[in-house]
């Protein structure tokens, strides 16, 4: 009798709440939406994000989900094109009625989609971009996980100067807002140190037409080249540079797509640095101080036996874990309002060692920039200090 009353009351509450709940929140599940580059030159980025998020979601689902709700992810391909991203996002919100947007990829798509996010006041969680405009305090609905490009480029410059005493720096950048964002970051970092950028050269977006840049940058003879671009043109550039005997320190911004870069570079990749905004994802066997990597690997394997760890998917996993963590806080009364409110709380969020901190004016959880170095056999390993290639 008592049990029945309890269950009845609970059902009533749940149904009542779900009646009043937001879109995407059902008694048995909560639905997230993702518009990302699942196809085209940048498809690895979108696919990895998706993989990571799904690993995190399935991990949570295996232990009962959030207040009994399964986590679901709907992913649509926008080919890294802003127009597509806009269409997808509208569809996700209006047709699929997702609870929140998660794991979008790219600066231009995000820029295009941001007005829609603000219009619908829907949470925009962990976009795979370090663009500054997403990190402004007035963006109430965007919650970034990764450090910004400015932070990355700052770190890069720091490391280059501190570790390698390099001051002659050149930049290869994608000829779009993303590339220019990175370029600005480098210039700012150099300016902070009262240095000037030696040379910079763009390449057309979505192409590998980098040879002119190779020639130009080679002519300027920098000691390091910071590459703000995706893996295909980055790899082409690095290969030709090295082919020509021009071998500065190459540092890629995290957006490059590390594993794809490694695959594209092949042998040519030895000693190439890639900045990261997530911890080292590979289970090296050595105990890391970050348990989340272990959890991530488990979750990944649980999702796909043949899934391979990577920085992109780890970032996706972390983003997914964040979403789960915040949603858990709201318990049964999962609303966007509650979600947004919880996100803004200043208490640090410890995702098994990876700590995120948000706040009233802070919508970026992590400020961490890590460095990894590529080997000829396409393996990365984390580094604290840069060193020249022997």
């Amino acid at each position, binding site marked *: 009798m008592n049990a029945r009353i309890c269950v009845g009351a609970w059902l009533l509450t749940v149904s009542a709440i779900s009646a009043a709940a937001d879109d995407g929140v059902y008694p048995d599940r909560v639905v997230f939406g993702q518009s990302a580059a699942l196809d085209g030159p940048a498809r690895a980025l979108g696919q990895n994000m998706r993989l990571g998020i799904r690993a995190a979601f399935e991990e949570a689902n295996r232990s009962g989900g959030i207040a009994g709700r399964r986590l679901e992810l709907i992913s649509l391909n926008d080919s890294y094109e802003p127009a597509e991203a806009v269409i997808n996002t509208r569809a996700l919100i209006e047709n699929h009625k997702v609870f929140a947007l998660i794991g979008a990829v790219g600066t231009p798509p995000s820029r295009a989609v941001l007005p829609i996010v603000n219009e619908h006041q829907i949470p925009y969680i962990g976009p795979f971009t370090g663009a500054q405009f997403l990190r402004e305090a007035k963006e109430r609905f965007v919650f970034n996980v990764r450090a910004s490009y400015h932070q990355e480029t700052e770190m890069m410059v720091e490391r280059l100067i501190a570790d390698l005493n390099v001051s002659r720096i050149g930049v290869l950048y994608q000829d779009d807002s993303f590339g220019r964002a990175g370029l600005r970051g480098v210039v700012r970092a150099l300016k902070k140190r009262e240095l000037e950028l030696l040379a910079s050269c763009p390449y*057309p977006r979505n*192409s*590998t*037409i*980098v*040879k*002119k840049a*190779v*020639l130009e940058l080679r002519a300027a003879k920098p000691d390091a080249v910071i590459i703000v671009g995706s893996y295909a043109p980055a790899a082409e550039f690095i*290969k*030709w540079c090295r*082919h*020509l005997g021009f071998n500065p320190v190459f540092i890629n911004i995290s957006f490059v797509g590390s594993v794809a870069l490694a695959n594209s570079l092949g042998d040519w990749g030895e000693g190439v640095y890639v900045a990261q905004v997530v911890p080292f994802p590979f289970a090296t066997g050595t105990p890391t101080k970050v348990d989340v990597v272990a959890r991530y690997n488990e979750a990944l394997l649980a999702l796909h036996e043949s899934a391979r760890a990577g920085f992109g998917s780890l970032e996706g996993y972390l983003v997914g874990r964040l979403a789960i963590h915040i949603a858990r806080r709201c318990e049964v009364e999962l609303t966007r309002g509650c979600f947004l409110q919880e996100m803004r709380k200043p208490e640090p969020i410890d995702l098994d060692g990876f700590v995120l901190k948000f706040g009233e004016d802070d919508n970026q959880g992590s400020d961490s920039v890590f460095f990894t170095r590529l080997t000829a056999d396409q393996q990365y390993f984390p580094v604290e200090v840069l060193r020249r290639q022997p």
Partner: protein
Amino acid sequence: MKRRWTRPPTVQKLFDSAVRLSTQIYVAVSIAVLTIMFASGLGIFFVLQIGEAQRKVNEENVPRMVAAFEVAVRTEALTAVAPRLAAASAEDVGEISAEVAAVLSNFKSAIAEFRQAYEGEIDVTLLRSSEAEIEHNIGQVEKLVSQRTTLREQIDLLRAEFQQTRGKLALYLGAAADNQLFYLKTGYRELGEPPASRARYFNEAEFERYRLLAELSKFAEEMIQQIASGFAIKDEALLSPLVEEFEASLAGAQRVVNLVGAETKELDEVIGKIDRLASLGIGDQSGFSMHGARLRIDRDIQDLLLRNRREGNQLVSGVKQLVASASTASEEAAAFAGNVVLTATWVMFVLNGLSIVGALLLAWLFVERRLVRRLLSVSQSMREMALGDLDVKVQVEGRDEIAEMATALEVFRQHAREHLRLNLVEKMAAQLQEKNQALEEAMQRVREAQDQMVMQQKLAALGELTAGVAHEIKNPMNFILNFAEVSQELLGELLEEIDSGDRDAEKDRRDGKDIDFGLVEEIGSDLTTNMTKIQEHSQRANSVVKGMLAMGRGTGEATATDINSLLDESVRLAFHSARAADQAFMADIQQDLAPETGTLLVKPQDIGRAFINVIGNACMAVDEKRVQLADQRSEDDRYEPTLTVSSRREGEKVRVTIRDNGIGMSQEVMDKMFNPFFTSKPTTKGTGLGMSLTLDIVREHGGTIHVESKAGEFTEIVMELSDYPDDPGGAQAEEQEAP
């Protein structure tokens, strides 16, 4: 005598009926109804007039105006919708076409209606031609629009292709140029391959190649630009120069292509794309021509629309003129209607006023004064009657139903009153009956009482009589006794005497006395006298007893009775009775009885009773006076109570007068003296029945009693008696005469 003119009966009937309420009401109502009918008739007349005017307007003018208005509106609508058709996108064109068709059909029907409304009145050929023109134009527009739609689709396809081609071309050319430059600078073509020798790459041909590639890029860029602007061009006239430019650029590109040669895969791609661009720009199926055609279509459409607008305006203005004329006609009709309305209003106003006044008058004069007031009066009468007041006469005015009602009510009232009275009478009769009954019973009781009283009186009288008789007898008896005693004594003496003498003889000597024979004689004479006296007195007693017996022998029959002796007896009895009552009683009774009185046929006991009563009263009266005056008068002026009993014979009658000088009677007492139970004596002394009985007896005997009296002086009672009549008591009792 002048004969008064009377109305003939039918006319009289008429006049009579005129006064009737019903008639009046019917007349009033009829007048009211007639007034209403008249007013309605007037109203209807006015309304009909207005209706006629309206009809004209509605059936002639208004349809015309409406039709004309419709035409104008529909023309406007058509003129408005046509551009929309022209501007319709591929998805909307179907919808808008349908809309246009609808608007067009509306337009045509409006024209048709308009023609109908103006049947025969105006020349409609103008309309017809305009209509046809407009319709034709719309049809054309539709055709052109559909053509344009197709073209647009095609153009869109081309455009899409162009974008793709453009993007790819940019990539390929970019890459080719990039590679060529790189090669020039570094000698590298492929990553895996070793670089070419410097001579190989760093030569004129390669430079030329690079330059050509650059030029090709330029031409390609130009072509792309031209195609792009071609799609954006609005003015068809500008197309052909653009086409020329394109042709120039294409020629240039082709020239370069020829020069460059298709050595690399990329270049093949490039050339392919350039060819594609060429086809986009050149030829009938090229974007330019299509775009040009589209522009032409646009222009044609605009022309048609313009022409339509002009036609429409013409049509509308023509129609407007007609509308104006129709509207003036309508205005006239409206004005007329307005006038009619005004007139009607005034008339109605006046009628209403009259009606109101009439109604008020009616209400006051007729309803109030003639109806209500009288009804109220009647109802008031009814109310009074209901409350029981039947004495107030019902007011009857007029000769109508209400008067009849009042009359009926009056009759009813009177009947009711009578009825009430009868009821009352009945009730009273019943009461009377009861009372009578009671009275009868009372009377019976009284009679019984009276009889008893009479009996008592008689007993009393008898008692008195007895007293008297006793006295009468007592006297003689006394005498007898005395005489007997004396006689006894005398005898005794005698005997003694004798005895004394006798004894002498016997004895020798007793006393020696000799019988005194003188004494014996004296005694013997005394004895004889005594015996005689005894005898007298015995006879007297006997006669008294006889008389008394005769008195008590019942009331029986009337016999011839000697009045005087009766009187004498009565005197004696009364005297003794009075004496018995009061020892001090003294009266001088003088009898003046005329011998001629003789006898009368009477009931001696009764008459005797009567005599006794009267005489007894007289005795009482004088005794009373004596007692009264006993203190007052002196010895000299002594009151001498005197009674005078006289009788006289006057023919058949006998007059008996008893006069006394007693205390007399006041008028009051005289009035009541014959009343039963009325007495001036104290209760113990008299029953009050005496005189009443006396009167009864006298009346019964057909006689009369007269009384004369003066208070304090005298009383004289005169009885006139006659023979006992055959019907006793027949004579009426006479009123007492005042002295």
